[in-house]
């Protein structure tokens, strides 16, 4: 427990003793405080093994970035430009309702150049110059696949391990299992930024707690005067007045506790105290004015714009420094059904530098080893053009059968490519990785055996990985 928290709790304790409560009131509070300390450490018996990573920063690229234009280099495709996608490749796989009626499926090679990057010689697109500089720190998994073919079910699947609504999100699972390292901040924080490309809707369910207790839901940080909903005191009411207000509230609640002896009252007193602490810890966290110039240089010009992906990346680092367990950014705008070359360039301008900066920044602070970074969307995109293929323009439809993600940091082997797709980036030919495998791996790196993090609901022991999930051993250090 940090000294500030300690003092705060002592003050609260002192209130208790001074309010002349009966013995049980004190006992209830003491046991509550003891429980709190325990809850901060998560479930008993966790972690199951020594973790490689203390926390996760998950950079969700919402809308599904094209693997063909960023990561999955297919030089042979240039020759097949415009040729109809062979049936032997497509194998009658289902398409979305958007291109199922298309008469032809013209092969659309990427218009972007690829080159080898870093010592490891990872192939990366020209759209990712900054990521290229971090090539030796990242692991490129090219063989992800998913069951869903539409955004909402696909995002829900990535976030909860199931396509339909109702189950807890991955961050909620982590919060439930491992608890928080910081008494003043939630264990699971979410930030959303808007891209320049075609955006799809995002649902709050992506960070909901499902059937887990609500306190494990992701808390959304927003770029507004209220970084967390209802955080700020009303205008005209300062924190001195609030402190006094809370003291009076606690006195009244303590009287009630002494009378009724319901431990929920003690919990409520403690939650109001945590709310007060958040009122200072969150704005302090969200205030980037204390960052040196070099930070903004590193994360790029956008990083001065509150709410931008770049600013959120800086916040992610600050949250990581403060021990927040699961930090998830959603950047919208990757749904390039048309005008892909122009739109994806814009998306990359917003994300490439800050993503790479986050890796470099954590590394220079010695935190990369203990932070797992995940970068990726909910599915991939088709090799054939949606709509007309021209010299410099095309679109790509949803493609769940293969796509790429980037992992870096705690427990991940850098400078490595894992998995392989066919010449069309249409089917996986080596080391397929499904969503549950990714989840199992993330949990493993956090010291959690994914088969043993369960919650009984409706008579069943649910888990994030449902009945599946194998660790991706080939990418681990």
């Amino acid at each position: 427990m940090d000294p500030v928290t300690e003092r705060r709790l002592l003050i609260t304790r002192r209130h208790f003793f001074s309010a002349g409560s009966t013995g049980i009131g004190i006992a209830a509070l003491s046991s509550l405080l003891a429980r709190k300390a325990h809850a901060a450490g998560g479930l008993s018996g966790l972690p199951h093994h020594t973790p490689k990573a203390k926390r996760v920063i998950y950079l969700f690229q919402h809308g599904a970035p094209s693997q063909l234009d960023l990561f999955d280099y297919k030089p042979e495709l240039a020759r097949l430009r415009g040729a109809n996608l062979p049936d032997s490749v497509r194998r009658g796989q289902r398409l979305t309702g958007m291109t199922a009626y298309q008469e032809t499926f013209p092969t659309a090679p990427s218009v972007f150049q690829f080159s080898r990057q870093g010592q490891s010689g990872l192939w990366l697109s020209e759209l990712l110059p900054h990521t290229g500089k971090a090539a030796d720190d990242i692991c490129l998994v090219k063989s992800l696949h998913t069951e869903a073919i539409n955004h909402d079910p696909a995002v829900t699947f990535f976030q909860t391990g199931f396509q339909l609504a109702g189950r807890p999100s991955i961050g909620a699972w982590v919060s439930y299992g491992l608890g928080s390292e910081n008494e003043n901040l939630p264990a699971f924080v979410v930030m959303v930024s808007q891209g320049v490309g075609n955006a799809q809707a995002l649902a709050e369910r992506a960070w909901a707690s499902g059937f887990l207790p609500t306190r494990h839901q992701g808390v959304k940080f927003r770029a507004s005067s209220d970084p967390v909903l209802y955080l700020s005191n009303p205008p005209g009411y300062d924190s001195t007045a609030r402190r006094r207000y809370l003291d009076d509230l606690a006195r009244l609640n303590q009287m009630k506790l002494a009378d009724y002896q319901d431990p929920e009252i003690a919990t409520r007193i403690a939650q109001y105290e945590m709310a007060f602490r958040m009122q200072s810890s969150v704005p302090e966290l969200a205030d980037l004015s204390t960052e040196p110039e070099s930070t903004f240089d590193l994360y790029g010009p956008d990083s001065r714009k509150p709410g931008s992906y770049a600013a959120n990346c800086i916040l992610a680092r600050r949250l990581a420094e403060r021990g927040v367990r699961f930090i998830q950014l959603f950047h919208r705008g990757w749904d390039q059904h048309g005008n892909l070359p122009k739109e994806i360039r814009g998306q990359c301008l917003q994300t490439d530098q800050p993503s790479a900066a986050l890796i470099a920044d954590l590394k220079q602070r010695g935190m990369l080893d203990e932070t797992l970074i995940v970068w990726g969307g909910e599915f991939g995109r088709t090799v054939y053009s949606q709509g007309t293929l021209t010299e410099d323009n095309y679109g790509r439809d949803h493609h769940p059968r293969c796509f790429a993600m980037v992992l870096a940091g705690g427990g991940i082997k850098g400078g490595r490519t894992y998995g392989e797709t066919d010449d069309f980036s249409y089917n996986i030919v080596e080391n397929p990785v499904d969503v549950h495998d990714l989840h199992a791996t993330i949990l493993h790196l956090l010291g959690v055996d994914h088969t043993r993090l369960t919650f009984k609901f409706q008579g069943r022991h649910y888990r994030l990985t449902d009945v599946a999930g194998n660790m991706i051993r080939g990418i681990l250090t």
Partner: protein
Amino acid sequence: MRRPFVAAVFLFAPALSAADGRLQFNRDIRPILSEKCFLCHGPDAKTKNIPIRLDVETEAKADHNGRRAIVPGDPDKSELIRRISAEKKPLLMPPVYSGLKLTAHEVETLRVWIAQGAEWQKHWAFIAPVRPELPRVRNSSWPRNAIDHFILARLEREILSPSPETSRETLLRRASLDVTGLPPTPAEIDAFLGDASPEAWTKVVDRLLASPRYGERMAARWLDYARYADTNGYQFDGERYMWRWRDWVISAFNRNLPYDRFVLEQIAGDMLPGATLDQVIATGFNRNHRGNTEDGIVPEEYAVEYVVDRVETTCTVFLGLTMGCARCHNHKYDPFSQREFYQLFAYFNNIPENGRAMKYGNSPPLVAAPTAEQQQAHARLQAQIRAVEEFLADREPQIARAQQQWEHHLPAAGTLYWAPPAGIASIFELELPGLAATPAGPPEYKAGRVGNAAWFDGTTFLQYGEYGNFDIEDHWTIAAWVYGDGKLDGPVASRMADNPKGRGYGLHLNNGRVHVHLTSVYETDALRVETEESIAPGQWHHLAATYDGSRMVDGVSVYIDGRPAKLKFHANTLYRPFRNAGRRFAEPFRIAGGWGTERRFKGGTDDVRLYARVLSREEIESLAVGQPVGYLAGQPPSRRTAAEARLLRWHFLENAAPNEIRQAWDRLVSLRREREILERSFPTVMVMAEQPVRRDTFFLVRGAYDKPGEKVEAGVPLALPPLPPAAPNNRLGFARWLVDPSNPLTARVAVNRTWQMYLGVGLVKTTEDFGVQGEWPSHPELLDWLATEFVRSGWDMKALQKLILTSATYRQSSRVSAELLQKDPGNRLLARGPRFRLPAEMIRDQALLAAGLLAEKLGGPSVKPYQPPDLWKELIMQDMEYVQSKGPDLYRRSLYTFWKRTVPPPVMVNFDSANREVCVVRESRTNTPLQALNMMNDVTFLEAARFIGQRMMNEGGSTPELRLRHGFRLLTGRAPVSGELEILQDSLRYHLDYFAGKPEAVDAYLNQGVSPPDPALGRRELASYAAVASLILNLDEAVTKE
């Protein structure tokens, strides 16, 4: 009690020390086997090639190669005992890799049970409840009704005593919140405190149950169970309109509709003989599931999901069964096979629906569901219309005479034509050239069918600006005379992008056949119909098309020469408006244009008309007559067609009849138009319906929509009773089966949920699961007594609640002692009254009521109260905006708050509301810092606090003490004790000091919310009282039912 903690742990564990020492399979054994063994040795064992099942008695006791899992009376010979106590890891059960482990206590329990003879029992919840005798109690003066006998008997067994009755104030607040969702007013408190009669409490209970607020309170929970929301969910999450169903629920509770009817009507009200509109609306229950409207989906996939959702929700809400577990494989714990899942699926699979839901508005099947006021207005109009019709009918001889005279005097020649005047939008008579821009050059104007016509040469067309600005939910009629020159191909009139697949609508000729379309996306999102017959070239034809805004192919009609034409459809899904997602739809209205330059019409077009309504067949016939009035009058009546005669009569009534008649006719026309407009304003609601030809249902391999196995027939699971004898094997029969008294689950599940609402936790804690993995009831006999009593009373929901409310159990104080807290932390034994944080909606509603802001009105469209700005904008994609309501709608009860599934109202989420995406029946409560922030800083609560402060000053009295007392009482329902009052006075003094000399701070603090403060009050004082009101609002007691 020396070891109270141990006692608490084993409260619901096997009672090895039970009085008779006998273990019961249902209570003591099955929970162990289910939790630790059934995953493999359960109903799904065969598909995993596991030979031994432990969920079936005969198999568990059968001989398997010389070994028997269970040998009654002989634990040592039982393979089960040998394996669970094996020391060698490879032999040990459950296997180490499963992560499951039996405790020593569990092993011992199984051993003792086998030694006692291993007596089996069918799962308790699948055996119909039998009304038990009231147990005997020692303290016979405590029980007030049957409930108390059961509760007390158990307490006495545990050597506990019930708590004393709580104070009248606390009891009144508890019950007011429980029954009406709102706290009592000071006047109500005074009345109850002042009522010394022995019936005082019964009177209060009756008053509360009779309040219309009761229906709202009950509906709030029912909406959670029914996953009610105002949007479709999934990705786009557009608006839908299910509030008429929500209002049906409120009214059903308030009418005290018996629960069996309540269930029957929601499951199959549409199939009841002579179903009323209300009974059809009730079936909206099973249309509240989410609907996917995303462009790229495979509709068949979601059509399956909707049916699965119906099965899961229906089984959870009415049967307490987790049937969804059997979708992909046999149930792992309960005796339900995957096949049986699809048999239930079949009951809900015969609805004429599309897997892709409508992006905006309701998806078929739906009904127009006028509100009571609208129904009254409609009836009024009907009566007025009938009166005028009778007036005219009575004067028929006089009218006929007058018409005859008029016809006589009419000049036979002339170019006066008649057309229906009501709802006309635009007439293009084409008499005068040069009206419209013509990029390809002007058409030729020369004689046409009823006047001049425009003649097109295959390149020319006419283009007008803002005419025919209809979208997919509008009603319209297009009519025109057309003369085809040769090929008979190309557009007659349209408002669409000028290309072959353009967005918009049009009336075209396709190689002689009449073609009508409404197109949002050519391939996937359009209605396209075409006549079977062709029209002939070289002659005039009258063409008309009508569309009724239904977005359904049935909503389009085409007439050729006044006769309805037989249609074939080529596309039948229309779900996005032309103006979808902020797209502009600035196409002009064109005559002979709109299919691109390749396909222009060649020929003449005359008298093009647009109506903003669907013309009747008779009206269209009259348009197709195509003769001047004078000419028709000149024909002897015997030679006139019916249409001609009607046209003449209409013209006469409109223009030439005697004054009195003409005025009556005018009035009739406008009343009919008024009725039509009223009917179009009726809200709709999605409902259940049956297809005439039953859709086949197939077993789905691993639950996947695209892996159908064998065909299955509808049916109920074998483990439960069969359909009642007279019930048909369809959804209606299934509904009758649900509420048949022989059904072991329905009544138990319902009373258990009611119990949960009042006592905080169900008698079966797992409200959603009465299967073998569900929790053993804390009071099994009470559950059965209540269930049988419920049925005996005619499923009387209010009577059931009255029973609970008048019990001594409910009336106990919720104070707890250290000893009791340790022995029974969850209060499952009910040695004290319930004490729980209020549900989300009550927290807000209570604040509004205490503030005097609550705008009470039953029902109506959902409203949008305060919400932090941009919450929707940050996440959604298109053109839905949170437009905050105005006036009273800012202050309606929270069950009327607009619920957007992907971005639900934050106050509801913060306070643990059900998610409204899927069915949720268990109530959950957490205690978080976000709740504290919400209560302290949300404008909703700040404004309410200001109004409470204002009430303190205006109503409380002249001294701070009196005022603070008043405010405290408004929220807690009791007077503060002196210690509390001191703190409140302290706080008030502090705030008066704090705000002193800070007028800006006062202004800012008072400037929360749109309702202005009382100008007569001192602002610093008001701000200070508001701050103290906020403090009271945030008290644990204020957010708690005590």
